[in-house]
């Protein structure tokens, strides 16, 4: 989130796209409804389903799954055609705007209606509402990202906010709700295949930076890899690791994967889950670290699996990062019960056994405080430096002194700090940054410009135009020594820049000069390192509209995508819809969480949602000849199928079937409840919705496309 949950209270309008906050983020609703009630803020909900959030909306916009980018480009078209764009913001803080307009001119409301199913009139209405009620807070979640063009879709959300001038403003921003209490923390640690902690990437300099932080010899780490080039090659992503086990596809490494540790990961959130199960059985070793035995425990036919009972969040302590980038301390309530151990203990035992504890525990004497400290030493890119364990704990002890609207402490021991020191918090004295890219405040008081990351000048491929990428003259945070744009800081300490200077002198010098360590640049409409430099609509891989595939085809197939090839063009078959006529999309229910291992093992939550189902529009169900409550087979183009109960509801339209993804314990019609360890079966088992989610991955992030596949349905 560029802003915070609390700051959404200042929004004058809110738009949600691919987000169903009452089910996925119920706590956020108090702030959303506050804005609605106090500011009269219109709430616009764009979703294929009439969700529980739509029940609180002033406008519900039903969109065809996977066409979000087209709708956003259509809104920009209407806004710019009418002159409603924020001209001064664009002139001073945005680059590549003309190149954006060259794309959006084709996305007229009528063209958008053809793609999205949203009437031209409604597109015009929404654009007007947003133009008249600024600032707008824009929220998306997995509904925006889990598409083969997910990275383009999310960029169009940002572009809309740039065009409206809603960035860096209280009540505005792009506010992506994170799915768990510490997912932002996990993301910042880059538990990913293509990054070292704090988004440092995998380049040689990045490895060397972290080796300096850990006090580990770079050459030793390098020697651990069978080939040096593998060190900088992204690994297998969460979405497709099982292909690395199955070895049916071309792999960009010498051997298939042989062992897997799943740490707090219910893998039935993986698309094509039946293939995940095949991979489980092919692995030589599978270790599941979890408070509850996940579906993996029941799905494995071989004895290759070890279950390590880990402690719950109440049995351990440490720093966690919320969706609003705030860092809090989690205190232990009780010691780990039974024979479970907390994650730190399990990791330490593992590292000891593997024989390199001496290398990695040099700075770690007191767990978990020293972990937070080491992180603060190294994670300079995102300003994890000022949030020491002492300061975090002080904030929590003085929680009552912080204002609910501004998040700032009014008097008391934390006077002037923002609660949880939202990152970046550059130094011990810095109050945290409650709103990113806000140039109304000095950098030392939590202000920031846009980051200078991609050079100072660029000639665009599409137009041949050359543009300065730094902010315009006179546009900077108050007190900035340079009155206008400037480059990122480097060579303050010779041989380093602001991201690699472990003395943190560079950060302090920049702030003392009233400037941001990362420079003051423009936000880019043209991303020249992406396949679509300005985002455009491309039809989902498995599209129900053969006519639109011709007009908006997907990408060429992608080679060496992480450690695999990914099919795009060769997978997009216009004939597919004839056999698989309905769009399948997935999502959350409020009672269950993630893969559901924990919540389906809670008797009260199990009682509230005891059964897997498929939401089907009554008209579709009646036309197909089955009744509400009948068991139906849902089949995917990949040949997998699930047997679930039909739940007739008008939440979905006649072309779309919705599945919650939290269920597990039944696989393609067969219950596995007897295969759980004795006494550990959850109260509720059900078919995994992700068995029938289709092939399809984003071209940049490789996130799975679970929101816009195709399926067929028949009575069981």
């Amino acid at each position: 989130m560029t802003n915070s949950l609390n700051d959404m209270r200042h929004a004058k309008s809110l738009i949600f796209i691919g987000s169903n906050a009452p089910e996925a983020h119920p706590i956020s609703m108090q702030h959303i409804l506050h804005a609605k009630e106090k500011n009269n803020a219109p709430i616009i909900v764009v979703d294929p389903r009439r969700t529980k959030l739509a029940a609180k909306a002033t406008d519900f916009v039903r969109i065809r799954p996977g066409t979000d980018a087209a709708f956003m480009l259509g809104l920009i078209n209407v806004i710019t055609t009418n002159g409603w764009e924020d001209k001064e913001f664009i002139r001073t803080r945005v680059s590549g705007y003309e190149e954006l307009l060259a794309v959006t001119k084709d996305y007229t409301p009528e063209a958008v209606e053809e793609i999205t199913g949203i009437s031209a009139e409604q597109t015009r209405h929404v654009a007007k509402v947003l133009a008249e009620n600024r600032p707008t807070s824009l929220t998306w979640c997995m509904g925006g990202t889990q598409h083969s063009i997910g990275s383009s879709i999310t960029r169009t959300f940002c572009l809309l906010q740039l065009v409206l001038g809603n960035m860096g403003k209280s009540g505005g921003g792009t506010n992506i709700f994170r799915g768990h209490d510490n997912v932002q923390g996990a993301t910042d640690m880059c538990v990913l295949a293509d990054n070292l902690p704090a988004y440092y990437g995998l380049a040689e300099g990045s490895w060397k930076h972290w080796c300096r932080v850990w006090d580990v010899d770079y050459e030793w780490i390098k020697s651990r890899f069978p080939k040096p080039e593998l060190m900088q090659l992204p690994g297998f992503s969460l979405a497709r690791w099982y292909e690395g086990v199955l070895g049916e596809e071309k792999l960009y490494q010498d051997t298939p994967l042989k062992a897997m540790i799943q740490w707090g990961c219910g893998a039935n959130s993986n698309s094509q889950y039946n293939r995940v199960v095949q991979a489980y059985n092919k692995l030589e070793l599978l270790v599941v670290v979890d408070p509850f035995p996940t579906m993996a425990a029941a799905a494995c036919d071989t004895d290759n699996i070890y279950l390590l009972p880990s402690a719950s969040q109440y049995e351990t302590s440490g720093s966690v990062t919320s969706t609003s980038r705030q860092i809090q301390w989690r205190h232990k309530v009780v010691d780990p019960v039974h024979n479970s151990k907390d994650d730190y203990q399990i990791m330490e035992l593992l590292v000891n056994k593997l024989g390199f504890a001496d290398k990695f525990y040099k700075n770690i004497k007191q767990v978990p405080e020293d972990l937070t400290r080491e992180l603060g030493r190294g994670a300079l890119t995102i300003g994890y430096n000022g949030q020491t364990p002492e300061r975090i704990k002080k904030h929590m002890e003085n929680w009552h002194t912080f204002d609910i609207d501004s998040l700032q402490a009014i008097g008391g021991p934390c006077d002037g700090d923002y609660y949880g020191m939202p990152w970046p918090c550059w130094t011990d004295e810095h109050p945290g940054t409650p709103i990113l890219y806000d140039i109304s405040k000095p950098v030392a008081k939590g202000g920031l410009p846009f980051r200078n990351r991609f050079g100072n000048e660029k000639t665009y491929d599409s137009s041949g135009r050359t543009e300065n990428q730094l902010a315009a003259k006179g546009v900077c945070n108050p007190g900035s020594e340079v009155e206008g744009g400037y480059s990122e800081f480097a060579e303050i300490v010779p041989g380093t820049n602001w991201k690699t200077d472990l003395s943190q002198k560079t950060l302090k010098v920049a702030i003392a000069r009233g400037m941001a360590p990362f420079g003051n640049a423009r936000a880019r409409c043209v991303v020249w390192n992406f396949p679509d430099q300005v985002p455009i609509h491309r039809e989902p891989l498995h599209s129900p509209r053969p006519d639109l595939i011709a007009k908006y085809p997907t990408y060429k197939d992608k080679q060496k995508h992480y450690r695999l090839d990914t099919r795009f063009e060769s997978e997009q078959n216009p004939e597919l819809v004839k056999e698989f006529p309905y769009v399948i999309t997935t999502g959350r229910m409020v009672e269950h969480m993630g893969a559901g291992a924990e919540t389906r093992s809670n008797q009260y939550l199990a009682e509230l949602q005891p059964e897997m189902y498929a939401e089907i529009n009554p008209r579709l169900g009646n036309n197909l000849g089955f009744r509400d409550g009948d068991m139906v087979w849902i089949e995917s183009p990949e040949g997998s199928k699930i047997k679930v109960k039909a739940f007739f509801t008008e939440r979905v339209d006649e072309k779309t079937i919705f599945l919650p993804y939290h269920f597990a314990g039944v696989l393609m019609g067969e219950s596995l409840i007897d295969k759980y360890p004795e006494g550990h079966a959850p109260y509720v088992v059900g078919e995994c919705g992700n068995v029938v989610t289709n092939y399809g991955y984003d071209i940049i992030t490789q996130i799975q496309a679970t929101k816009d596949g195709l399926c067929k349905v028949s009575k069981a």
Partner: protein
Amino acid sequence: MARLKFLCDTERCIDCSGCVVACKEGNHVPVGVNRRRVITLDSGKPGEKSISVSCMHCADAPCIAVCPVDAIYQRDDGVVLVNKKTCIGCGYCFMACPFGAPQFPKGEVFGARGAMDKCTFCAGGPEETFSAEEKHLYGQNRIAEGKVPLCAGMCATKALLAGDADVVADVYRERVFQRGSGSNAWGWSKAYDKK
């Protein structure tokens, strides 16, 4: 003396069932017995509304009037409680209640139902306050601890309000006043919205 009341603000209830689970978990209510539940009208259709319902602790409680063994009684603060040791499980209170609040632990269609169970406003029961028996039969006594009931304490959007009727009414009045400004005012959308 304060009069305790519940109020569920349907503009704010998001049907998350947090109140239901908080009540059950905190009071160890058995599966199948629902002291509180969330009802949704027009689910998935325009105008969908949800409301959290439990015993409302009525002023002139019909359950008290019909109980043949005088097992149900009302405290001075308005909280309606049942004495489970007196209750014969006849179910008359269930027929009389306009909110469907009384619950019975046994599920058979005919025969013994067991002693009636319902929302206590988290005020325990007739046994000695904070005693093990009170906790076993009725759950927590948070009112005696000076706390609001679990359901209202849990509510993410503060849709469910519980407490002194005057305070609850003030909170709600302020909300209605805020919403009444501008286009939320009754009749305005019909009268003045441009189609």
